[in-house]
Protein backbone atom coordinates (compact mmCIF):
# COMPACT_ATOMS: atom_id res chain seq x y z
CA UNK A 1 0.00 0.00 0.00
CA UNK A 2 1.95 2.97 -1.28
CA UNK A 3 1.34 6.40 0.14
CA UNK A 4 2.89 9.69 -0.95
CA UNK A 5 4.49 11.80 1.79
CA UNK A 6 3.85 15.46 0.94
CA UNK A 7 6.82 16.91 2.84
CA UNK A 8 9.39 14.16 2.35
CA UNK A 9 8.45 14.19 -1.37
CA UNK A 10 8.48 10.46 -1.92
CA UNK A 11 6.12 7.56 -1.61
CA UNK A 12 6.52 4.87 1.02
CA UNK A 13 4.82 1.61 1.84
CA UNK A 14 2.36 2.66 4.54
CA UNK A 15 2.30 -0.80 6.15
CA UNK A 16 6.09 -0.83 6.55
CA UNK A 17 6.00 2.53 8.35
CA UNK A 18 3.07 1.46 10.57
CA UNK A 19 4.93 -1.77 11.36
CA UNK A 20 8.06 0.17 12.19
CA UNK A 21 6.05 2.42 14.49
CA UNK A 22 4.52 -0.69 16.05
CA UNK A 23 7.86 -2.31 16.84
CA UNK A 24 9.21 0.92 18.32
CA UNK A 25 5.97 1.44 20.27
CA UNK A 26 6.18 -2.11 21.62
CA UNK A 27 9.69 -1.45 22.90
CA UNK A 28 8.72 1.90 24.33
CA UNK A 29 5.79 0.36 26.18
CA UNK A 30 7.93 -2.50 27.49
CA UNK A 31 10.87 -0.41 28.64
CA UNK A 32 9.30 2.96 29.37
CA UNK A 33 11.49 4.80 26.88
CA UNK A 34 10.39 6.94 23.95
CA UNK A 35 11.97 4.78 21.27
CA UNK A 36 13.06 7.71 19.13
CA UNK A 37 16.57 6.26 19.14
CA UNK A 38 15.30 3.49 16.88
CA UNK A 39 12.83 5.44 14.74
CA UNK A 40 15.19 8.05 13.31
CA UNK A 41 17.92 5.66 12.10
CA UNK A 42 15.35 3.21 10.71
CA UNK A 43 13.56 5.95 8.79
CA UNK A 44 16.85 7.21 7.37
CA UNK A 45 17.71 3.64 6.42
CA UNK A 46 14.36 3.41 4.61
CA UNK A 47 15.28 6.43 2.50
CA UNK A 48 13.52 9.30 4.28
CA UNK A 49 15.66 12.47 4.30
CA UNK A 50 17.43 12.75 7.74
CA UNK A 51 15.87 16.11 8.63
CA UNK A 52 12.34 14.90 7.92
CA UNK A 53 13.06 11.70 9.87
CA UNK A 54 14.28 13.55 12.97
CA UNK A 55 11.46 16.11 12.82
CA UNK A 56 8.68 13.55 12.42
CA UNK A 57 10.10 11.05 14.92
CA UNK A 58 9.78 13.66 17.68
CA UNK A 59 5.99 13.71 17.37
CA UNK A 60 5.90 9.92 17.53
CA UNK A 61 7.69 10.05 20.88
CA UNK A 62 5.03 12.52 22.07
CA UNK A 63 2.29 10.05 21.19
CA UNK A 64 4.06 7.10 22.78
CA UNK A 65 4.63 8.92 26.08
CA UNK A 66 1.15 10.45 26.56
CA UNK A 67 -0.60 7.45 28.06
CA UNK A 68 2.42 6.72 30.27
CA UNK A 69 2.24 10.22 31.70
CA UNK A 70 -1.47 9.85 32.50
CA UNK A 71 -0.83 6.52 34.25
CA UNK A 72 1.98 7.98 36.33
CA UNK A 73 -0.03 11.11 37.17
CA UNK A 74 -2.84 8.93 38.47
CA UNK A 75 -0.33 7.04 40.65
CA UNK A 76 1.14 10.32 41.89
CA UNK A 77 4.63 9.46 40.71
CA UNK A 78 5.27 12.66 38.76
CA UNK A 79 7.32 15.36 40.49
CA UNK A 80 5.80 18.41 38.82
CA UNK A 81 8.29 20.83 40.29
CA UNK A 82 11.26 18.78 39.10
CA UNK A 83 9.48 18.18 35.78
CA UNK A 84 8.84 21.90 35.36
CA UNK A 85 12.52 22.75 35.85
CA UNK A 86 13.55 19.98 33.44
CA UNK A 87 11.06 21.21 30.84
CA UNK A 88 12.30 24.79 31.15
CA UNK A 89 15.81 23.51 30.53
CA UNK A 90 14.60 21.24 27.76
CA UNK A 91 12.89 24.04 25.86
CA UNK A 92 16.02 26.19 26.20
CA UNK A 93 18.10 23.27 24.96
CA UNK A 94 15.78 22.71 22.00
CA UNK A 95 16.21 26.38 21.10
CA UNK A 96 19.98 25.96 21.23
CA UNK A 97 19.56 22.77 19.23
CA UNK A 98 17.92 24.75 16.39
CA UNK A 99 21.00 26.94 16.23
CA UNK A 100 23.42 24.00 16.36
CA UNK A 101 21.36 22.14 13.75
CA UNK A 102 21.57 25.06 11.34
CA UNK A 103 25.28 25.57 11.95
CA UNK A 104 26.05 21.90 11.32
CA UNK A 105 23.81 21.87 8.25
CA UNK A 106 25.72 24.86 6.92
CA UNK A 107 29.03 23.13 7.57
CA UNK A 108 27.72 19.91 6.03
CA UNK A 109 28.60 17.85 9.09
CA UNK A 110 25.14 17.16 10.50
CA UNK A 111 25.14 13.48 9.47
CA UNK A 112 28.53 12.76 11.00
CA UNK A 113 27.66 14.55 14.24
CA UNK A 114 24.36 12.69 14.50
CA UNK A 115 26.23 9.41 13.91
CA UNK A 116 28.90 10.10 16.52
CA UNK A 117 26.37 11.33 19.08
CA UNK A 118 24.35 8.15 18.60
CA UNK A 119 27.37 5.90 19.06
CA UNK A 120 28.62 7.71 22.17
CA UNK A 121 25.21 8.05 23.78
CA UNK A 122 23.87 4.58 23.05
CA UNK A 123 27.24 2.89 23.62
CA UNK A 124 27.73 4.58 26.98
CA UNK A 125 24.21 4.09 28.28
CA UNK A 126 23.99 0.57 26.86
CA UNK A 127 27.21 -0.48 28.58
CA UNK A 128 26.03 1.01 31.86
CA UNK A 129 22.69 -0.76 31.58
CA UNK A 130 24.27 -4.08 30.62
CA UNK A 131 26.63 -3.95 33.60
CA UNK A 132 23.79 -3.10 35.98
CA UNK A 133 21.43 -5.76 34.71
CA UNK A 134 24.09 -8.49 34.68
CA UNK A 135 24.88 -7.68 38.29
CA UNK A 136 21.18 -7.83 39.09
CA UNK A 137 20.86 -11.19 37.30
CA UNK A 138 23.85 -12.64 39.17
CA UNK A 139 22.32 -11.45 42.41
CA UNK A 140 19.03 -13.06 41.42
CA UNK A 141 20.67 -16.43 40.62
CA UNK A 142 22.89 -16.60 43.70
CA UNK A 143 20.12 -15.30 45.91
CA UNK A 144 22.40 -12.66 47.34
CA UNK A 145 20.98 -9.20 47.61
CA UNK A 146 23.24 -6.53 46.14
CA UNK A 147 24.40 -4.03 48.73
CA UNK A 148 21.89 -1.21 48.95
CA UNK A 149 23.26 1.81 47.14
CA UNK A 150 23.42 4.89 49.24
CA UNK A 151 21.15 7.29 47.44
CA UNK A 152 23.20 10.43 47.18
CA UNK A 153 23.61 12.94 44.47
CA UNK A 154 26.84 13.70 42.73
CA UNK A 155 29.22 16.07 44.61
CA UNK A 156 29.11 18.51 41.67
CA UNK A 157 25.35 18.84 42.12
CA UNK A 158 25.82 19.68 45.78
CA UNK A 159 28.29 22.42 44.88
CA UNK A 160 25.73 24.43 42.88
CA UNK A 161 24.30 27.52 44.57
CA UNK A 162 20.64 28.10 45.59
CA UNK A 163 18.61 25.13 46.79
CA UNK A 164 15.01 24.14 46.29
CA UNK A 165 13.01 21.38 47.89
CA UNK A 166 11.69 18.70 45.53
CA UNK A 167 9.34 16.77 47.81
CA UNK A 168 8.28 13.93 45.56
CA UNK A 169 11.87 13.32 44.53
CA UNK A 170 13.05 13.51 48.10
CA UNK A 171 15.69 16.08 47.23
CA UNK A 172 16.99 19.39 48.47
CA UNK A 173 19.25 20.54 45.64
CA UNK A 174 19.94 23.49 43.39
CA UNK A 175 17.43 23.76 40.49
CA UNK A 176 20.39 24.52 38.21
CA UNK A 177 21.32 20.83 38.12
CA UNK A 178 18.03 19.60 36.58
CA UNK A 179 17.94 22.74 34.40
CA UNK A 180 21.31 21.86 32.84
CA UNK A 181 20.27 18.23 32.50
CA UNK A 182 17.06 19.29 30.78
CA UNK A 183 19.05 21.50 28.45
CA UNK A 184 21.32 18.64 27.39
CA UNK A 185 18.33 16.41 26.59
CA UNK A 186 16.63 19.28 24.74
CA UNK A 187 19.64 19.63 22.43
CA UNK A 188 19.67 15.87 21.82
CA UNK A 189 15.94 15.86 21.08
CA UNK A 190 16.34 18.56 18.47
CA UNK A 191 19.37 16.97 16.81
CA UNK A 192 18.45 13.30 16.96
CA UNK A 193 14.67 13.24 17.23
CA UNK A 194 14.98 11.17 20.41
CA UNK A 195 13.10 11.88 23.60
CA UNK A 196 16.21 11.78 25.74
CA UNK A 197 14.75 9.32 28.25
CA UNK A 198 17.92 7.29 27.88
CA UNK A 199 20.05 10.08 29.22
CA UNK A 200 17.47 11.41 31.61
CA UNK A 201 16.61 8.29 33.59
CA UNK A 202 20.19 7.28 34.52
CA UNK A 203 21.15 10.89 35.13
CA UNK A 204 18.20 11.42 37.45
CA UNK A 205 19.11 8.27 39.36
CA UNK A 206 22.86 8.60 39.57
CA UNK A 207 23.60 12.32 39.22
CA UNK A 208 20.63 13.87 40.99
CA UNK A 209 19.91 10.89 43.21
CA UNK A 210 16.14 11.06 42.80
CA UNK A 211 13.76 8.68 44.51
CA UNK A 212 13.36 5.69 42.15
CA UNK A 213 9.57 5.60 42.12
CA UNK A 214 9.20 9.09 40.66
CA UNK A 215 12.03 8.83 38.09
CA UNK A 216 10.13 7.22 35.21
CA UNK A 217 6.97 9.32 35.59
CA UNK A 218 8.91 12.58 35.80
CA UNK A 219 11.12 11.73 32.85
CA UNK A 220 8.07 10.82 30.74
CA UNK A 221 6.47 14.10 31.79
CA UNK A 222 9.56 16.02 30.64
CA UNK A 223 9.84 14.03 27.40
CA UNK A 224 6.19 14.73 26.56
CA UNK A 225 6.63 18.48 26.77
CA UNK A 226 10.09 18.69 25.24
CA UNK A 227 9.10 16.60 22.22
CA UNK A 228 6.05 18.83 21.80
CA UNK A 229 8.29 21.91 21.85
CA UNK A 230 10.73 20.23 19.46
CA UNK A 231 7.97 19.36 16.99
CA UNK A 232 6.90 23.00 17.06
CA UNK A 233 10.45 24.25 16.56
CA UNK A 234 10.99 21.90 13.64
CA UNK A 235 7.66 23.03 12.15
CA UNK A 236 8.72 26.68 12.48
CA UNK A 237 12.37 26.42 11.41
CA UNK A 238 13.22 23.37 9.30
CA UNK A 239 9.58 22.94 8.11
CA UNK A 240 10.37 19.25 7.88
CA UNK A 241 7.53 17.73 9.94
CA UNK A 242 5.64 15.36 7.66
CA UNK A 243 2.14 14.94 9.09
CA UNK A 244 1.38 11.87 6.97
CA UNK A 245 4.60 10.18 8.07
CA UNK A 246 3.94 11.15 11.70
CA UNK A 247 0.37 9.80 11.47
CA UNK A 248 1.57 6.43 10.13
CA UNK A 249 4.22 6.16 12.84
CA UNK A 250 1.69 7.14 15.51
CA UNK A 251 -0.88 4.54 14.42
CA UNK A 252 1.74 1.85 14.89
CA UNK A 253 3.37 3.16 18.00
CA UNK A 254 0.34 3.99 20.15
CA UNK A 255 -1.01 0.48 19.58
CA UNK A 256 2.44 -1.06 20.09
CA UNK A 257 2.93 0.94 23.28
CA UNK A 258 -0.25 -0.50 24.83
CA UNK A 259 0.72 -4.06 23.92
CA UNK A 260 4.23 -3.43 25.24
CA UNK A 261 2.94 -2.12 28.56
CA UNK A 262 0.91 -5.33 29.08
CA UNK A 263 3.82 -7.54 28.06
CA UNK A 264 6.16 -5.79 30.45
CA UNK A 265 3.98 -6.81 33.39
CA UNK A 266 4.50 -10.48 32.69
CA UNK A 267 8.29 -10.41 32.30
CA UNK A 268 10.80 -9.98 35.10
CA UNK A 269 12.27 -6.46 35.03
CA UNK A 270 15.84 -7.88 35.20
CA UNK A 271 15.33 -9.73 31.92
CA UNK A 272 13.64 -6.70 30.38
CA UNK A 273 16.63 -4.55 31.17
CA UNK A 274 19.21 -6.91 29.78
CA UNK A 275 17.09 -7.21 26.62
CA UNK A 276 16.96 -3.43 26.28
CA UNK A 277 20.70 -3.16 26.92
CA UNK A 278 21.33 -5.69 24.15
CA UNK A 279 19.17 -3.77 21.67
CA UNK A 280 20.81 -0.47 22.58
CA UNK A 281 24.33 -1.88 22.25
CA UNK A 282 23.42 -3.51 18.95
CA UNK A 283 22.16 -0.21 17.50
CA UNK A 284 25.29 1.56 18.78
CA UNK A 285 27.57 -1.06 17.22
CA UNK A 286 25.71 -0.83 13.91
CA UNK A 287 26.06 2.95 13.90
CA UNK A 288 29.76 2.73 14.81
CA UNK A 289 30.37 0.35 11.92
CA UNK A 290 28.48 2.75 9.68
CA UNK A 291 30.91 5.52 10.58
CA UNK A 292 33.98 3.41 9.89
CA UNK A 293 32.88 1.43 6.84
CA UNK A 294 32.85 2.92 3.39
CA UNK A 295 29.33 4.39 3.10
CA UNK A 296 26.98 3.34 0.28
CA UNK A 297 26.70 6.93 -0.79
CA UNK A 298 29.89 8.93 -1.08
CA UNK A 299 28.04 11.95 -2.41
CA UNK A 300 25.17 13.86 -0.92
CA UNK A 301 23.10 16.55 -2.59
CA UNK A 302 21.68 19.53 -0.81
CA UNK A 303 19.27 21.82 -2.63
CA UNK A 304 19.59 25.49 -1.87
Amino acid at each position, binding site marked *: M*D*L*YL*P*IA*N*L*SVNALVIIGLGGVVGLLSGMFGVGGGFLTTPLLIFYGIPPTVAAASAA*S*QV*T*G*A*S*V*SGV*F*THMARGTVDFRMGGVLIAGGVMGAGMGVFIFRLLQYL*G*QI*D*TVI*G*ILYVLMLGGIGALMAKESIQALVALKTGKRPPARKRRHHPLVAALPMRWRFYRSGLYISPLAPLLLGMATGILTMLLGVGGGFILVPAMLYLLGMATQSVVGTSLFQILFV*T*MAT*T*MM*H*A*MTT*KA*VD*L*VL*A*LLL*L*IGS*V*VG*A*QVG*TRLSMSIRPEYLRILLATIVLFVAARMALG*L*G*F*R*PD*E*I*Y*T*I*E*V*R
Partner: protein
Amino acid sequence: MPRWRALLALPAALALMGADEPQLVPDVSQREVVIQYSFTGADLLLFGAIVYPDGRRPDKPADIVVVLKGPEQSITMREKQKVAGIWVNADTARFRSAPSFYAMASSRPIGRIVDERTAAIYELGVDKLQLSPSSLNESAELSRFQSGLVDLRARSGLFVERPGIVEITDGVLYRARLPLSARVIVGDYTAETFLVQDGRVVAAAVRDITVRKSGFEQFMASAAEHWSFVYGLVAIAMAVGMGWAAGAIARRI
Protein backbone atom coordinates in the same frame (compact mmCIF):
# COMPACT_ATOMS: atom_id res chain seq x y z
CA MET B 1 22.82 28.71 -18.57
CA PRO B 2 21.80 25.57 -20.49
CA ARG B 3 18.14 26.58 -20.64
CA TRP B 4 19.18 29.78 -22.43
CA ARG B 5 21.42 27.82 -24.66
CA ALA B 6 18.55 25.56 -25.66
CA LEU B 7 16.38 28.58 -26.30
CA LEU B 8 19.11 30.18 -28.39
CA ALA B 9 19.56 26.96 -30.29
CA LEU B 10 15.87 26.72 -31.15
CA PRO B 11 15.49 29.83 -33.37
CA ALA B 12 18.73 28.83 -35.03
CA ALA B 13 17.29 25.41 -35.74
CA LEU B 14 14.05 26.93 -36.96
CA ALA B 15 15.90 29.33 -39.24
CA LEU B 16 17.81 26.41 -40.67
CA MET B 17 14.59 24.61 -41.49
CA GLY B 18 13.34 27.08 -44.04
CA ALA B 19 10.90 25.71 -46.58
CA ASP B 20 12.59 22.46 -47.49
CA GLU B 21 13.55 21.36 -43.99
CA PRO B 22 11.35 18.85 -42.15
CA GLN B 23 9.26 19.90 -39.17
CA LEU B 24 8.24 18.17 -35.96
CA VAL B 25 4.74 17.98 -34.54
CA PRO B 26 5.26 16.63 -31.03
CA ASP B 27 2.85 15.86 -28.24
CA VAL B 28 2.83 14.21 -24.83
CA SER B 29 0.27 11.88 -23.28
CA GLN B 30 -0.19 14.17 -20.28
CA ARG B 31 0.25 17.93 -20.19
CA GLU B 32 -0.23 17.84 -16.45
CA VAL B 33 0.99 15.27 -13.96
CA VAL B 34 -0.80 15.38 -10.62
CA ILE B 35 0.89 14.03 -7.52
CA GLN B 36 -1.70 12.61 -5.17
CA TYR B 37 -1.67 10.26 -2.20
CA SER B 38 -1.15 7.11 -4.27
CA PHE B 39 1.48 8.62 -6.58
CA THR B 40 4.26 6.12 -7.25
CA GLY B 41 5.53 7.72 -10.42
CA ALA B 42 4.09 8.01 -13.90
CA ASP B 43 4.80 6.86 -17.42
CA LEU B 44 4.82 9.60 -20.01
CA LEU B 45 4.30 8.85 -23.66
CA LEU B 46 6.11 11.28 -25.95
CA PHE B 47 4.93 10.96 -29.52
CA GLY B 48 4.46 12.94 -32.68
CA ALA B 49 4.97 13.19 -36.38
CA ILE B 50 7.77 14.27 -38.67
CA VAL B 51 6.43 16.44 -41.47
CA TYR B 52 8.64 16.43 -44.57
CA PRO B 53 8.22 19.15 -47.19
CA ASP B 54 6.12 17.81 -50.08
CA GLY B 55 5.74 14.57 -48.13
CA ARG B 56 9.02 13.23 -49.53
CA ARG B 57 10.88 11.06 -47.08
CA PRO B 58 14.68 11.02 -47.20
CA ASP B 59 16.33 7.81 -48.36
CA LYS B 60 18.33 7.50 -45.19
CA PRO B 61 16.03 7.28 -42.15
CA ALA B 62 16.36 10.13 -39.68
CA ASP B 63 16.78 9.71 -35.92
CA ILE B 64 14.69 11.05 -33.06
CA VAL B 65 15.92 12.04 -29.60
CA VAL B 66 13.46 13.03 -26.89
CA VAL B 67 14.50 14.71 -23.65
CA LEU B 68 12.30 15.28 -20.62
CA LYS B 69 13.73 17.85 -18.24
CA GLY B 70 12.62 19.01 -14.79
CA PRO B 71 13.13 22.38 -13.09
CA GLU B 72 16.74 23.31 -12.48
CA GLN B 73 18.05 23.53 -8.96
CA SER B 74 20.96 25.24 -7.34
CA ILE B 75 22.69 22.49 -5.35
CA THR B 76 25.59 21.90 -3.03
CA MET B 77 27.26 18.51 -3.32
CA ARG B 78 29.42 17.03 -0.63
CA GLU B 79 31.89 14.21 -0.94
CA LYS B 80 32.71 11.89 1.94
CA GLN B 81 36.29 11.00 2.68
CA LYS B 82 37.88 8.90 5.38
CA VAL B 83 39.33 11.20 8.03
CA ALA B 84 40.81 9.71 11.21
CA GLY B 85 39.02 6.40 10.72
CA ILE B 86 35.53 7.71 10.03
CA TRP B 87 33.80 8.88 6.89
CA VAL B 88 33.00 12.59 6.95
CA ASN B 89 31.98 15.15 4.38
CA ALA B 90 35.17 16.74 3.09
CA ASP B 91 35.08 18.30 -0.38
CA THR B 92 32.17 20.32 -1.67
CA ALA B 93 31.13 21.66 -5.05
CA ARG B 94 28.29 23.98 -5.94
CA PHE B 95 26.28 23.88 -9.13
CA ARG B 96 23.82 26.56 -10.15
CA SER B 97 21.76 24.64 -12.69
CA ALA B 98 21.43 20.95 -11.98
CA PRO B 99 18.20 19.56 -13.47
CA SER B 100 16.05 17.93 -10.79
CA PHE B 101 14.93 15.42 -13.40
CA TYR B 102 16.37 14.36 -16.75
CA ALA B 103 15.21 11.56 -19.00
CA MET B 104 16.38 10.91 -22.54
CA ALA B 105 15.34 8.39 -25.15
CA SER B 106 16.69 7.97 -28.65
CA SER B 107 16.04 5.79 -31.67
CA ARG B 108 19.64 4.52 -31.65
CA PRO B 109 22.50 4.78 -29.14
CA ILE B 110 23.32 8.47 -28.91
CA GLY B 111 26.98 8.00 -29.84
CA ARG B 112 25.92 6.70 -33.24
CA ILE B 113 23.48 9.56 -33.91
CA VAL B 114 25.50 12.69 -33.09
CA ASP B 115 29.10 13.55 -32.33
CA GLU B 116 30.32 14.68 -28.92
CA ARG B 117 30.12 18.36 -29.73
CA THR B 118 26.50 18.30 -30.92
CA ALA B 119 25.53 16.16 -27.94
CA ALA B 120 27.10 18.75 -25.63
CA ILE B 121 25.31 21.68 -27.33
CA TYR B 122 21.86 20.11 -27.01
CA GLU B 123 22.64 18.41 -23.67
CA LEU B 124 21.94 14.93 -25.01
CA GLY B 125 22.96 12.50 -22.28
CA VAL B 126 23.44 12.72 -18.53
CA ASP B 127 27.17 13.22 -18.94
CA LYS B 128 26.55 16.21 -21.22
CA LEU B 129 24.51 18.28 -18.76
CA GLN B 130 25.68 21.85 -18.23
CA LEU B 131 25.63 22.22 -14.46
CA SER B 132 27.19 25.71 -14.24
CA PRO B 133 29.60 25.15 -11.35
CA SER B 134 29.82 28.17 -9.07
CA SER B 135 32.58 26.99 -6.77
CA LEU B 136 36.29 27.01 -7.54
CA ASN B 137 37.07 23.36 -8.10
CA GLU B 138 39.54 21.88 -10.51
CA SER B 139 38.03 20.39 -13.65
CA ALA B 140 39.02 16.85 -12.66
CA GLU B 141 37.25 17.37 -9.34
CA LEU B 142 34.18 18.79 -11.06
CA SER B 143 33.85 15.83 -13.38
CA ARG B 144 34.18 13.52 -10.36
CA PHE B 145 31.33 15.39 -8.67
CA GLN B 146 29.28 15.34 -11.86
CA SER B 147 29.59 11.58 -12.20
CA GLY B 148 28.68 11.27 -8.51
CA LEU B 149 25.56 13.33 -9.13
CA VAL B 150 24.62 11.28 -12.19
CA ASP B 151 25.11 8.01 -10.30
CA LEU B 152 23.06 9.16 -7.31
CA ARG B 153 20.19 10.56 -9.38
CA ALA B 154 20.21 7.60 -11.76
CA ARG B 155 19.72 5.18 -8.87
CA SER B 156 16.77 7.16 -7.50
CA GLY B 157 15.23 7.21 -10.97
CA LEU B 158 15.73 10.94 -11.47
CA PHE B 159 18.22 10.61 -14.32
CA VAL B 160 17.15 8.15 -17.00
CA GLU B 161 18.76 7.21 -20.30
CA ARG B 162 16.88 4.90 -22.64
CA PRO B 163 18.84 4.60 -25.87
CA GLY B 164 17.12 2.81 -28.71
CA ILE B 165 13.55 2.84 -27.37
CA VAL B 166 12.14 5.52 -29.67
CA GLU B 167 10.05 3.69 -32.27
CA ILE B 168 9.68 5.31 -35.66
CA THR B 169 6.81 4.02 -37.77
CA ASP B 170 7.11 4.39 -41.55
CA GLY B 171 9.68 7.13 -41.05
CA VAL B 172 7.05 9.69 -39.97
CA LEU B 173 5.48 8.70 -36.66
CA TYR B 174 7.56 8.35 -33.53
CA ARG B 175 6.79 7.33 -29.95
CA ALA B 176 8.72 6.77 -26.74
CA ARG B 177 7.76 6.02 -23.18
CA LEU B 178 9.70 7.65 -20.35
CA PRO B 179 9.23 6.95 -16.63
CA LEU B 180 8.68 9.82 -14.22
CA SER B 181 10.00 8.81 -10.79
CA ALA B 182 7.90 9.17 -7.61
CA ARG B 183 10.62 11.45 -6.25
CA VAL B 184 10.12 14.22 -8.81
CA ILE B 185 9.60 17.73 -7.52
CA VAL B 186 6.74 19.96 -8.61
CA GLY B 187 7.29 22.58 -11.28
CA ASP B 188 7.47 23.16 -15.00
CA TYR B 189 8.95 20.39 -17.10
CA THR B 190 9.84 20.45 -20.76
CA ALA B 191 9.65 17.66 -23.31
CA GLU B 192 12.09 18.42 -26.13
CA THR B 193 12.19 16.48 -29.36
CA PHE B 194 15.13 16.59 -31.78
CA LEU B 195 15.15 15.32 -35.34
CA VAL B 196 18.67 14.33 -36.32
CA GLN B 197 19.84 13.71 -39.88
CA ASP B 198 23.47 12.85 -40.70
CA GLY B 199 24.65 13.92 -37.27
CA ARG B 200 22.95 17.31 -37.58
CA VAL B 201 19.90 18.48 -35.63
CA VAL B 202 17.52 19.53 -38.38
CA ALA B 203 14.40 20.18 -36.34
CA ALA B 204 13.53 20.70 -32.68
CA ALA B 205 10.31 21.26 -30.79
CA VAL B 206 9.30 21.71 -27.17
CA ARG B 207 6.19 20.89 -25.20
CA ASP B 208 5.62 21.99 -21.62
CA ILE B 209 4.45 19.66 -18.88
CA THR B 210 3.36 20.79 -15.44
CA VAL B 211 3.91 18.59 -12.41
CA ARG B 212 1.89 19.68 -9.41
CA LYS B 213 0.60 18.26 -6.16
CA SER B 214 -3.12 17.58 -5.94
CA GLY B 215 -5.44 19.20 -3.41
CA PHE B 216 -4.46 17.46 -0.18
CA GLU B 217 -0.73 17.15 -0.88
CA GLN B 218 -0.56 20.75 -2.09
CA PHE B 219 -2.47 21.88 0.99
CA MET B 220 -0.08 20.06 3.32
CA ALA B 221 3.03 21.37 1.62
CA SER B 222 1.83 24.97 1.62
CA ALA B 223 0.48 24.71 5.17
CA ALA B 224 3.90 23.52 6.38
CA GLU B 225 5.48 26.41 4.52
CA HIS B 226 3.11 29.31 5.23
CA TRP B 227 1.17 28.44 8.38
CA SER B 228 3.97 26.65 10.18
CA PHE B 229 2.73 27.51 13.68
CA VAL B 230 -0.74 26.09 13.09
CA TYR B 231 0.83 23.13 11.27
CA GLY B 232 3.03 22.45 14.32
CA LEU B 233 0.01 22.71 16.63
CA VAL B 234 -1.88 20.20 14.51
CA ALA B 235 1.08 17.79 14.61
CA ILE B 236 1.24 18.06 18.40
CA ALA B 237 -2.53 17.76 18.84
CA MET B 238 -2.56 14.68 16.62
CA ALA B 239 0.24 13.02 18.62
CA VAL B 240 -1.32 13.81 22.02
CA GLY B 241 -4.82 12.90 20.86
CA MET B 242 -3.83 9.56 19.43
CA GLY B 243 -1.65 8.63 22.39
CA TRP B 244 -4.44 9.54 24.78
CA ALA B 245 -7.11 7.73 22.78
CA ALA B 246 -5.06 4.54 22.56
CA GLY B 247 -4.53 4.62 26.32
CA ALA B 248 -8.24 5.23 26.98
CA ILE B 249 -9.29 2.39 24.68
CA ALA B 250 -6.71 0.00 26.16
CA ARG B 251 -8.02 0.64 29.67
CA ARG B 252 -11.54 -0.45 28.61
CA ILE B 253 -10.41 -3.70 27.01
